[in-house]
């Protein structure tokens, strides 16, 4: 079946602009995660959604970052007033339930803030 998809693949924006990144998880997966990977670094947890529960936002670096998940499926990560340090690859992952530890990752969105 189809894997996790993300769009756009690449995004170039100017400092101060808002951006929206989209994630389509694997159909039926109830858990969805956003991570950020800066150049040459490991992944940094941002936010986690599980079913209809309140999301775990503990990894969001500032209030310029927000995410929502509509209908328990598609998720959008929004970065307002982008800064150059926001440049990174943003990765989305999903898993069938919280009890299933393996996460399935999308290809990521490479964001460049000029």
């Amino acid at each position, binding site marked *: 079946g189809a894997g*996790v998809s993300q769009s756009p693949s690449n995004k170039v924006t100017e400092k101060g602009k808002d951006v929206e990144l989209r994630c389509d998880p694997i159909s039926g997966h109830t858990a969805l*995660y956003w991570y950020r990977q800066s150049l040459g*670094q490991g*992944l*940094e*947890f941002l936010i986690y959604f599980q079913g209809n529960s309140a999301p775990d936002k503990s990894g969001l670096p500032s209030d310029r970052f927000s995410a929502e998940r509509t209908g328990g499926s598609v998720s959008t990560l929004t970065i307002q007033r982008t800064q150059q340090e926001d440049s990174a690859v943003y990765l989305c992952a999903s898993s069938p339930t919280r009890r299933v530890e393996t996460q399935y990752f*999308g*290809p*990521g969105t490479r964001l460049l803030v000029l």
Partner: protein
Amino acid sequence: SQQGEEDPQALSIQEGENATMNCSYKTSINNLQWYRQNSGRGLVHLILIRSNEREKHSGRLRVTLDTSKKSSSLLITASRAADTASYFCATEGGYNQGGKLIFGQGTELSVKP
């Protein structure tokens, strides 16, 4: 903040040799996972070892876990050029952590034909 530290940061070997990568972490864990990443894009899950396990095998992969030392190692035997990638360990802290993964910095493996 990152929990895991991996070493080496980069490893270059010849095809056919074995590659060993190490990972250390700081807090108690439910399980530890290894992922592979090609060209800085999506990650692929390789293997998961639970906190009550000491060793696990999958094909050419062998993972060990020492919870007393808070460390793990990934061994790739008989390496191939196609194994060239970045390898990350990730720890999962348990049910009350929501399943979020804490990643190490990664080891960049280069296998020369």
